[in-house]
């Protein structure tokens, strides 16, 4: 019986030969993670279970990245709950300030999530790790608490949607644009409860950072997980990082999909998703023609906070400056990304461009801190959501784009194409 990669990973972790869409399984979890927003509730629920220890002190990960560095007393108290639990449980993978980064940039970088893993995270963008050929999905705090204690999670096996990308990417087009375009086709609930498997010749040559941007936003189409089969590009990324064994899975050629969508990427331009939903994607040319003036640009996040994203932004910002009254925020995803930015001279370029460089944090992406918007303000952000009030006041607006469009827009003070500045 032929199966998809998602079905194979789920069957493997449930100790079954095969599974079918709709089947309920209880599966073993390789990694369970939470952040400073979701872990306090998970820890409280964990304590109700009457279990002394977490199922594995190397596989329960706590990453305080949302409101850190602590933005106020309340968030400091939330972060303290994580710290004390980590100490008490002897967690090997708790990340204190100075080591912490944005969870979905940090964990792949540190080799903590690997191909073939089953990963659940109390954060919806946990689906990012599908880029490595893992099954990774977001859950709430209570589901996470049960997994922290037992190492198990119940899951309904999803149907799979196959998206096949053909053709060569045009200049300035990134993985981010492919996923924004795809969400524009599927809409915000087009993959509800389903797996989004991304494949095709375009993906075969897409670098890991672009694959991570794509899997990261699978949730924005409602998907349970996004997934890309591991290949040589994956292995080149994983080999120097992995400190445990991993397994490579691939879909059978005759695996069954509920829907297949073929996309010719060669005509896709960089995309801009208009507020208030990530499925409102348009070509950057239309956005530029709409003459949308902006107040802030955010380059970073779990979608686009990797070194390659900053190299791309720097290639446009070099020798140029942010427009007058523009707040340009650069947020490296991790300390390693930050260090690499310094080594490569990118921080110099950003400082010359009069950008503010923030410590690694989710910060403004969710309107938490470090760049919240006032009423009537507009931002271009390389983040993943642009719902009402996402980055601050309910009457502020967020346009989503790739780092090149964001950098060009910061320079011109309005949504702009990269071609307008180079």
């Amino acid at each position, binding site marked *: 019986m032929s199966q998809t990669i998602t079905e194979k990973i789920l069957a493997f972790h449930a100790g079954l030969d095969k599974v079918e869409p709709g089947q*309920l399984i209880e599966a073993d979890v390789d990694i369970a993670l939470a952040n400073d*927003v*979701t872990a*306090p*509730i998970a820890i*409280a*629920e964990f304590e*109700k*279970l*009457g*279990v002394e220890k977490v199922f594995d002190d190397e596989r329960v990960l706590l990453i305080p990245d*949302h*409101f850190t560095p602590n*933005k*106020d007393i*309340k*968030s400091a108290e*939330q972060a303290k709950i994580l710290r004390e639990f980590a100490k008490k449980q002897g967690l090997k993978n708790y990340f204190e300030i100075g080591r912490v980064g944005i969870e979905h940039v940090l964990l792949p970088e540190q080799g903590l999530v690997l191909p073939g893993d089953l990963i659940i*995270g*109390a*954060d*919806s963008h*946990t689906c990012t790790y599908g880029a490595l050929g893992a099954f990774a999905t*977001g*859950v*709430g*705090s*209570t*589901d996470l*608490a*049960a997994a922290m*204690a*037992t190492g198990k999670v*119940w899951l309904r096996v999803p149907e799979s949607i196959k998206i096949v990308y053909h053709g060569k990417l045009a200049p300035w087009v990134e993985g981010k644009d492919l996923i924004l375009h795809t969400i524009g086709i599927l809409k*915000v*609930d087009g993959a*509800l*409860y389903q797996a989004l498997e991304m494949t095709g010749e375009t993906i075969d040559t897409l670098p890991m950072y672009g694959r991570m941007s794509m899997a990261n936003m699978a*949730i924005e189409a*409602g998907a*349970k997980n996004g997934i890309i089969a591991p290949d040589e590009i994956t292995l080149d990324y994983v080999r120097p990082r992995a400190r445990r064994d991993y397994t490579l899975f691939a879909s059978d050629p005759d695996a069954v999909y509920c829907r297949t969508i073929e996309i010719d990427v060669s005509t896709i331009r960089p995309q801009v998703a208009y507020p208030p*939903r990530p499925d409102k994607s348009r070509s950057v040319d239309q956005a530029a023609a709409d003459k949308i003036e902006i107040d802030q640009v955010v380059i970073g996040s779990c979608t686009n906070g990797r070194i390659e994203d900053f190299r791309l932004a720097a290639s446009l910002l070099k020798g140029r400056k942010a427009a007058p009254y523009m707040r340009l925020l650069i947020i490296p995803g991790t300390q390693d990304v930050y260090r690499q930015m310094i080594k490569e001279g990118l921080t110099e370029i950003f400082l010359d461009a009069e950008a503010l460089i923030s410590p690694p944090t989710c910060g403004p992406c*969710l*309107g*938490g801190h470090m760049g*919240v918007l006032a009423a009537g303000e507009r931002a271009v952000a390389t983040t993943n*959501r642009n*719902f*009402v*009030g*996402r980055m*601050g006041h*309910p009457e502020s607006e967020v346009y989503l784009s790739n780092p090149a469009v964001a950098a060009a827009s910061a320079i011109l003070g309005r949504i702009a194409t990269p071609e307008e500045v180079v």
Partner: protein
Amino acid sequence: MNIIQGKVWKFGDDVDTDAIIPARYLNTSDPLELAKHCMEDADIEFAGKVKVGDIIVAGKNFGCGSSREHAPIAIKAAGVACIIAPTFARIFYRNAFNTGLMILESAEASLAIEAGHEVVINPAAGTIKDLTIGKQFTARPIPEFMQKLLDDGGLIEHWRNRLSIEIFT
């Protein structure tokens, strides 16, 4: 499960978790604090006016976006007895069961029931009756496994029972 009767608050499609409980309030997980800001970015007056036992009727894909369990916690703590929608986003769906917030799926009820209507719900039978227009609807049955979780008193109780049995056998 008891019969529920309450006044309806109506919302549209794709109500996201940022609208249900904006992240600016996520520096706490206290249910009563969260309830004060429930649905704030969708309807600023909701939290001040909602009464215990009221019902939310919404469009498709309710609860899309983040995994924050604060969303169903805020709605439950605000006093809402049940949410009716054609579909729920998958993480919200699980979180609602895990936090004991009743949710029912019915496209017909979602379409027909308007704000301010008086509605009676029989959870055991899965029936939704709009007293204002005199129409009755049947919700999609709750999946057997989810029903078992509810019968056990939620996921944590389910595991408490299982773990205590495993320890003593």
